[in-house]
């Protein structure tokens, strides 16, 4: 490749992008101005709060029949605080103004004074069966009163301790031996750097990822959709330059800007960290950090930032290349940003170890890697996997991009958005199936909602939450179909089909179930831990009544999941791609949707079968029936383990013998074959 051409193109792109104020502001403002501002603001607020607490006086009225013993204790604590208050690092210094109500004019209603916030706490003590019983009145709704209440309670703790000691001493015993028969203390062996790293590890990766995304977003839009909107794309295409040279130069430009903005972010955060360290040292808090110990971490971190910026640049460019204008590109970026942010939250999950599988999952791998190196956990193999996989994904995306830039439909296509969802409803034409963009949007939104709302509902309401999740699956798609005025029958495949389709379907799904059993057992053998988790959650759900369980686990998914996957998604894909691609994509998404490595293969295959059913019969109903049978079989086996064991012992075993495998596979294949023949018979009849 001619480097001079690429160099010239990069120079031009950089010049072009840097002269756009929006990009420069996005790149500079956040790290250089916003971070320090947020930080200084937070410091100010914090300082204001703590100084207001320092100056605080608490007025406490005491009315007790104890000859002033407790009042004495209160005043002692107060004077102790005043003397040592300024040295206290935690800043909890205050003055207690305590007075004995009895010595004063006792006509006042102190309860009322408390309500009117003239005093902060009111202590009443009286003899009750040979013991003093104290009541501490305070108002939890008033901040000062709540604090005063707590302080008084603390004083009571000490007061009681003193009294105990005295009593023990009076009985002629040694107080400390009785009260403290053992001694214990907590010792942190983490180095200061490790503690700092672990604090930063949860926030820093997320901040870095978001700042990189923000940094690359504008140049990515500018060099792709922006170029098209300004009409310079055709100009550049008249030049004797190959499209891959064009892509590579655009990509390098975007990645460079991403890296610059990420470095600015790191520098700004580093500056704040150093500043904080200075302040801490001034505050005589002798927790000093040896910043040089962070150097290897920082170096690996910078490498990770480089790799990630390649990845995120390529991905954002892929997304924005489909857009014809800034506005449209922004619409496309938003879902991408959501996904990146959600995956970025993985850094906040405690105890999640970066293993080799996770090291290959984009975004998550970078988050976890940075988190790991900040606590000085450095495994070079995993670092290599993370860096390599990011670069590999970036290269794949670039290949895809150069394909886009060879496609005339995209380069010269008419300027109509493929997202109908963002159009006014009155402008949308009636009929047809949802566009691919809309279908993707539905999928993304559904998954986000399942992750947040669905899982919350399941934790809180159990089986009812599961039903709610299914409703999300149904309703998101339905509302988009309604809004874009799509043909419900076409979109969901609500067509009649013959009895042969159903009969064939029954045979096929039972056959599939048997084959699947062999596979699941095999997978359980390969990944023992993950299947255990699956069975635990399943048995938890099973505590409900059988009819309800059957309804929620077998019937609802058969309707809702089928309508989303084999209905809307499949028919949108079918309109756009060739049949094998459409079927494969839906099956893969169905597998991914179950969000478990172990479930991926069996559910993916189920998706494949159900998709084929819709394709072969032209109707969604047989697929719904099959999905229902499949889930019902699982419910049945889990709910009636004894009956199943008596009838067909194979189904309740954890491990399968070789002969079992052959019997199951043989029977499964036979049933599946018979089903297929019945179905094909229908097909042939139709062709005639």
């Amino acid at each position, binding site marked *: 490749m001619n480097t*001079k*051409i690429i160099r*010239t*193109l990069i*120079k*031009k792109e950089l*010049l*072009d992008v840097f*002269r*756009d104020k929006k990009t420069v502001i996005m790149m500079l403002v956040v790290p250089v101005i916003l971070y320090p501002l947020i930080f200084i603001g937070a410091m100010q607020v914090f300082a204001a709060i703590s100084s207001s607490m320092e100056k605080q006086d608490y007025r406490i009225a005491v009315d007790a029949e104890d000859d002033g013993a407790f009042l004495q204790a209160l005043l002692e604590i107060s004077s102790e605080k005043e003397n040592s208050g300024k040295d206290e690092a935690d800043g909890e210094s205050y003055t207690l103004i305590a007075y004995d109500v009895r010595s004063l004019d006792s006509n006042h209603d102190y309860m009322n004074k408390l309500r009117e916030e003239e005093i902060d706490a009111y202590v009443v003590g009286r003899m009750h069966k040979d013991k003093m019983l104290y009541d501490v009145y305070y108002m939890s709704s008033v901040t000062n009163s709540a604090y005063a209440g707590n302080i008084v309670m603390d004083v009571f703790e000490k007061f009681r301790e003193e009294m105990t000691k005295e009593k023990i001493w009076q009985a002629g015993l040694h107080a400390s031996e009785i009260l403290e028969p053992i001694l214990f203390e907590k010792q942190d062996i983490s180095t200061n750097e490790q503690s700092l790293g672990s604090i930063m590890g949860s926030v820093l990766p997320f901040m870095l990822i978001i700042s990189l995304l923000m940094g690359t977003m504008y140049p990515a839009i500018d060099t792709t959709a922006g170029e098209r909107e*300004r*009409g*310079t794309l*055709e*100009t550049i*295409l*008249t*030049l*004797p*330059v*190959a499209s891959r040279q064009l892509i590579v130069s655009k990509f390098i430009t975007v990645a460079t800007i991403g890296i610059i903005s990420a470095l600015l972010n790191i520098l700004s955060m580093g500056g704040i960290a150093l500043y904080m360290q200075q302040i801490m040292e001034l505050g005589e808090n002798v927790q000093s950090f040896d910043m040089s110990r962070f150097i290897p971490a920082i170096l690996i971190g910078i490498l990770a930032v480089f790799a990630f910026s390649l990845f995120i640049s390529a991905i954002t460019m892929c997304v924005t290349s489909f857009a014809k204008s800034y506005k449209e590109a922004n619409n496309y970026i938003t879902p991408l940003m959501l996904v990146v942010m959600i995956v970025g939250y993985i850094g906040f999950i405690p105890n999640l170890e970066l293993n080799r599988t996770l090291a290959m999952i984009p975004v998550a791998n970078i988050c976890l890697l940075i988190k790991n190196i900040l606590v000085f956990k450095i495994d070079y193999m995993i670092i290599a996997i993370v860096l390599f996989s990011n670069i590999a994904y970036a290269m794949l995306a670039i290949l895809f991009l150069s394909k886009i830039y060879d496609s*005339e439909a995209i380069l*010269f296509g008419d300027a109509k958005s493929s997202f109908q969802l963002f159009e006014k409803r009155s402008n949308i*034409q009636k*009929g*047809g*199936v949802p566009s691919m963009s809309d279908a993707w949007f539905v999928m993304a939104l559904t998954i986000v909602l399942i992750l947040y709302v669905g899982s919350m509902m399941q934790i809180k309401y159990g089986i009812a939450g599961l039903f709610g999740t299914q409703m999300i699956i149904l309703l998101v798609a339905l509302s988009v179909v309604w809004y874009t005025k799509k043909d419900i029958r*076409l979109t969901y495949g609500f067509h009649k089909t013959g009895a042969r389709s159903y009969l064939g379907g029954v045979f096929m799904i039972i056959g599939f179930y048997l084959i699947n059993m062999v596979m699941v057992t095999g997978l359980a053998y390969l990944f023992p831990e993950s299947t255990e988790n699956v069975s635990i959650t399943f048995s938890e759900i099973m505590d409900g009544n059988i009819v309800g369980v059957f309804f929620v686990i077998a019937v609802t998914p058969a309707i809702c999941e089928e309508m989303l996957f084999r209905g809307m998604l499949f028919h949108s894909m079918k*309109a756009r791609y060739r049949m094998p691609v459409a079927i494969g994509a839906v099956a893969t998404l169905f597998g991914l949707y179950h969000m478990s490595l172990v479930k991926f293969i069996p559910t993916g295959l189920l998706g494949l079968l159900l998709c084929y059913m819709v394709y072969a019969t032209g109707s969604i109903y047989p697929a719904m029936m099959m999905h229902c049978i499949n889930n019902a079989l699982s419910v049945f086996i889990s709910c009636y383990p004894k009956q199943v064991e008596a009838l067909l012992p194979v189904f309740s075993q954890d491990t399968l013998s070789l002969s079992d495998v052959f019997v199951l596979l043989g029977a499964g294949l036979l049933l599946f074959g018979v089903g297929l023949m019945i179905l094909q018979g229908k097909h042939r009849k139709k062709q005639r």
Partner: protein
Amino acid sequence: MSENRIMADSLVKTFTKNEKKNKKVEINAVDGISLSVKEGEIVGILGANGAGKTTLLRMLSKLMKPTEGCVSIRIGDREISDDIEVKRHIGYLSNNTKLYGRLSCRELLKMLGTLYGISDEAVGKKIEEISEVLSLGNFIDNRIEKLSTGQTQRASIARCLIHDPEVYILDEPTLGLDILSSGAIIEFMKRERERGKSILYSTHYMEEAESLCDKIIMIHKGKIISEGTPAALKEQTGKDALRGVFAELIVREGIADEH
């Protein structure tokens, strides 16, 4: 004697459009057009909106790949058909070839010169030369987004001239311009013709085409309905202006369609 410079042989371009109910409809925007342009010749392409002019010119300048047929140009005694090599010898101008607003005219010309493989020194000389001819002098270092319409049009012509191409393909270059600006473009075309360059251009302005073109090609629904010198076309239809010729031919074509 003059030789053929641009040669296009039975070009077809098919677009697939998604119509209602997901039925795909194939449309031939250009349907079997062959043409040639000689050295020192201006050929005008005339046609109504949607006749396929832009698609034809995009294929000729190698922005689009024809579904069928091929395009080649002759430079000296070499016949070139490789996309990138052909682009090297073409100056293409259309309403969609906007300039980078954030660059100055000089920066743009310099960058383009490098991309066309011209040495830095030669580019500098060429820019001075073009600046003189098109009188870009007082705005050549301003950002393009700050220029007036006429200045931008001159900058666009400068863009086409930087690599001194043998062939100019201009898609409605005078559309929406005032008399002065369109005059500058017509001057430019005449001047380049004098220098033996080949120019293929599309327009809606019949009078302009009549006075300027050595040959006229009229297209309708992706097909050539007539071609020849303006005089021959007028003779053929018995009209005294090109405007009448065009209307007459369209009507004839319409009648032929019905049969």
